[in-house]
């Protein structure tokens, strides 16, 4: 942060913590101070982190419900069109709309589309794939997928002030603090 990277925009300040408890405490503190643009990083999801970071309920359920409904109605309309409208086959005078026999495929297509909704919806909400990210500039950040626990306060936050954030993280017990640049 002392170097002459004046034309290089800061992305934020990354701080490392020793374990899940310290990370969750830090997240609570940062949230209480009123920061909005921050994130925590851990090799596995930490129980209680949603409350500590004050995360809104995931919208994923609605995406999946929409896809599931589409699968269900889509399957029914497809079978109805094919079996009743487009090519009705009279099989010993049995009813054309043989609904019970359609249930398995309607079920399968509901599940299939819901699963697509769940997976691709999750990646969409997370903004992935995003193969490059300013945080990957930090060599230390590689530990985030191994045994490192990190907090990053982003420069976008209205309260962002390099000195103050630095102090805040240090007081919270961070072991390793570094400034992350966009390039």
């Amino acid at each position, binding site marked *: 942060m002392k170097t002459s990277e004046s034309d290089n925009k800061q992305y934020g300040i990354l701080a490392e913590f020793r374990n899940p408890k310290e990370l969750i405490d830090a997240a609570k503190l940062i949230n209480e101070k009123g920061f909005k643009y921050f994130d925590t990083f851990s090799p*596995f999801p930490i129980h209680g982190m949603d409350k500590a970071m004050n995360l809104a309920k995931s919208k994923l359920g609605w995406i999946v419900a929409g896809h599931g409904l589409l699968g269900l109605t889509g399957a029914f309309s497809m079978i109805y069109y094919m079996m009743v409208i487009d090519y009705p086959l009279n099989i010993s005078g049995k009813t054309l709309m043989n609904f019970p026999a359609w249930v398995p*495929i309607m079920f399968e297509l509901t599940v299939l589309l819901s699963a697509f909704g769940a997976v691709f919806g999750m990646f969409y909400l997370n903004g992935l794939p995003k193969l490059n990210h300013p945080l990957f500039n930090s060599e230390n950040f590689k530990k985030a*997928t191994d045994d490192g626990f990190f907090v990053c306060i982003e420069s976008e936050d209205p309260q962002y002030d390099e000195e103050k954030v630095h102090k805040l993280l240090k007081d919270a017990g961070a072991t390793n603090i570094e400034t992350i640049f966009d390039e």
Partner: protein
Amino acid sequence: MSKTYEYVPEPALVKGNHDFKDITAMITDINLRPTPTGWYIAFTVSSLLLMVLLGSIAYLFWQGTGIWGLNSPAGWGWAIVNFVWWVGIGHAGTLISAILFLFRQGWRTAINRFAEAMTIFAVMCAGIFPAIHVGRIWVIYWVFPVPNSMTMWPNFNSPLLWDVFAVSTYLTVSFLFWYVGLVPDLATIRDRIKSKMGKMIYGTFALGWRGSNRHWWNYEKAYMILAGLATPLVLSVHTIVSFDFAVSIIPGWHTTIFPPYFVAGAVFSGFAMVLTLMIICRKIYGLEDIMTDDHIEKMNIIILVTGSMVGFAYAMEFFMAWYSGVEYEKAIFILRATGPYAWAYWIMISCNVLSPQFFWSKKLRRNVAFTFVISIVVNIGMWFERFVIAVTSLSTDFLPSSWGYYSPTFWDVATYIGTFGLFFTFFLLFLRFLPMVAVAELKGVMPQADPHNYNDKGEFVQPVVEIPEPYNKPS
């Protein structure tokens, strides 16, 4: 009053004194270090078997299904038996990854990745059989609702079409579930691998995962929803497979017990297959601290339960045949046990019903070598179960004048053995290039992952379980 009970603590999921770094290293180093010679040998053997499969299929396409032992009256033989067998094996993977997840069984994390991979490859092997069974492979697209030159659509009233949708949905959803679980672990390898090429490949498939808790939040939700979707899906798949038989009017097939009975059998054989593979792999890769004897014991209990359910279903079939009062139904069950295929029937009974009963003994449940033998015996038994169902009912049905004895040909056997080549080729590639244990999930169930297990100084303290005092009646 003396104490008449003792507290049995839940065994630790990860044995030994490992921290997060150890776990990462233990599992992903397998992918990072140079390929061992043994792997090349195994890969060569399985590739050769795969060539046997491809050769048999090529000859089948050239010559037609006449090269198999199928003829009137047995129009379904080894191909269908193998199809049901492989699909059934696949079911354990979904059971472990989805159903045990919904039941919050932490021990699943050691084996779920592994079992899910097994599911995908087993379903691939299974899918081959009905596809090549159609005879005219060049019009296989008729099974899908795509417009064709006849302006006809597939028959949605047919269980065989349900099967197409069920198995293809199952393969797709299993793959998605597996991939979602893999993303954080691929990111782990991306951050550890040295080679530039490897970094690029793993990095691409990791999609830029960086362990953000805002991401984990959606991720966990997605994982939960996928588990919730896969649970009814896996039950529906084998239900629909059983409908291929149960919806017909053939004696011995036309029974309502088939769906639950098939699902129980599928889980039974699948767990046996997971055990077979797991016992070999944990030995070779030294993962005994992660896939512990406690895991083996728990899986053996599931084998015991599902094996007994299958045994109950066999008994129930006999009862219903007698109770129905239908002559043909009664005849087929007596013929199964005493007729020309009695040898297959009794192999089935001894492998599926009797062999798992050894697991009532705790000592045998925890005996690795014994478990390994039983796991193979169970899968032999489950193959014979499908053989008994498919073949006996067809070869001795309503009219004795049209009875016949079915035997496989060389090509039936070659195709079946060849599918092992397909399975193990993919499985070996999986072991070599992908983390075989879900690293992130495993860390998540360790006591070190719970923020409550740290004191005010930020040091880890083992959680203490409070043992309740026995209740003494006030005298």
